[in-house]
């Protein structure tokens, strides 16, 4: 199923198996109007942004913040709000 993305009811079969985690094929990043930009230099890797992200869009590698997954980030700004050292800044999507 996940290999074969179904976009419309017209080509959706009447019944099929839904694979685990297949929502990864549905990119929610397009919802965003503001974009979080991560500054690695000030970041202390406290992971507060990671644990509080509703969309699992902050990627952690070996206990450090690796990157923000813009395919799924909906731009809510919780990460920028919770960051104790202001290492995440919300920028207008248009300005980029």
């Amino acid at each position, binding site marked *: 199923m996940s290999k074969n993305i179904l976009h419309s009811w017209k080509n959706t079969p009447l019944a099929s198996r839904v694979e685990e*985690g*297949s*929502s990864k*094929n549905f990119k*929610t990043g397009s919802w965003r109007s503001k974009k979080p930009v991560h500054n690695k230099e000030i970041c202390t890797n406290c992971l507060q942004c990671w*644990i509080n*992200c509703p969309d*699992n869009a902050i990627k952690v590698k070996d206990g450090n913040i690796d990157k923000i997954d813009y395919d799924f980030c909906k731009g*809510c700004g919780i990460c920028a709000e919770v960051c104790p050292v202001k290492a995440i800044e919300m920028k207008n999507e248009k300005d980029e």
Partner: protein
Amino acid sequence: MSSLKELSQRKGGITSGHRLCSGCGAGIMARQVMLAAGNYKVVVACATGCLEVATTIYPYSAWKVPWIHNAFENAAATISGVETAYKSLKKQGKIKKDLKFLAFGGDGGTYDIGLQSLSGALERGHDFLYICYDNEAYMNTGIQRSSATPKYAATTTSPYGEVISGKREFRKNITEIVAAHNIPYVAQTAVGYWNDLVTKVEKALEVKGPKFINIFTPCQLGWKYGPEKTLEIGKLAVETGFWPLYEVENGKYKINYKPQEKKPVEEFLKIQKRFNHLFKPERKEKLIQEIQDNIEKGWTELEKKEKCLN
């Protein structure tokens, strides 16, 4: 208690690409619960609600664990059936794995529609953990009032006008109703306190028998605030005493967090537009005071219970 570094090594049970609103408290809650349960093999049942609808829009699913949805009213009945089948299959030697059972329900699916099946499952003593994510109204169908909606909150079915000021009744206390079933573990926690939430879920999963955790889950759409304020509102609810963090372990009460000085409830009400009519056009002091008095009453009762039942 697990540290964030430890948690980040675990495989989460719910992934990206679900269609919950931006800044949704339920998304935060579900991720944290599934990370806390990350060391176990879990089976999840969801009652109808925001979480169920937004995470499993056909043909997609955001869940990485065995997952079942049945109807609005019977998440607890469904999971108790699954748990009983598992026990039988394990006895017959057809399943070797150790499994844990989780049920998620919103306040509609727990306080109102699912109360009867939840009560039944608790009384029968099935080994499962029920998570209620309380966003204080039926958000998924368009913000209708539920029995979890606080007094004077405006919803589409309890609007405010010249005569009435939002919902006219106080919310019901489901945590106490569940605690009255004398089950081994009942707790209340909030989005914004990941440490408290994860610790309680981990603690609950170690206990055998029915467990219940009620999670305060801010909803930016229904409570009408900016999506980045979700954690702040969760924290204000706890700091003002509106939502105490406590647990009942084998009948013993424990308040997990006592604010040194409780903030006035006004601070919690002011930043949510659903309470706007209490401040504009003119301030309704009497109504705000009524909410404040109710909080004080609740706290005094809870402190007494902690003192007497410890």
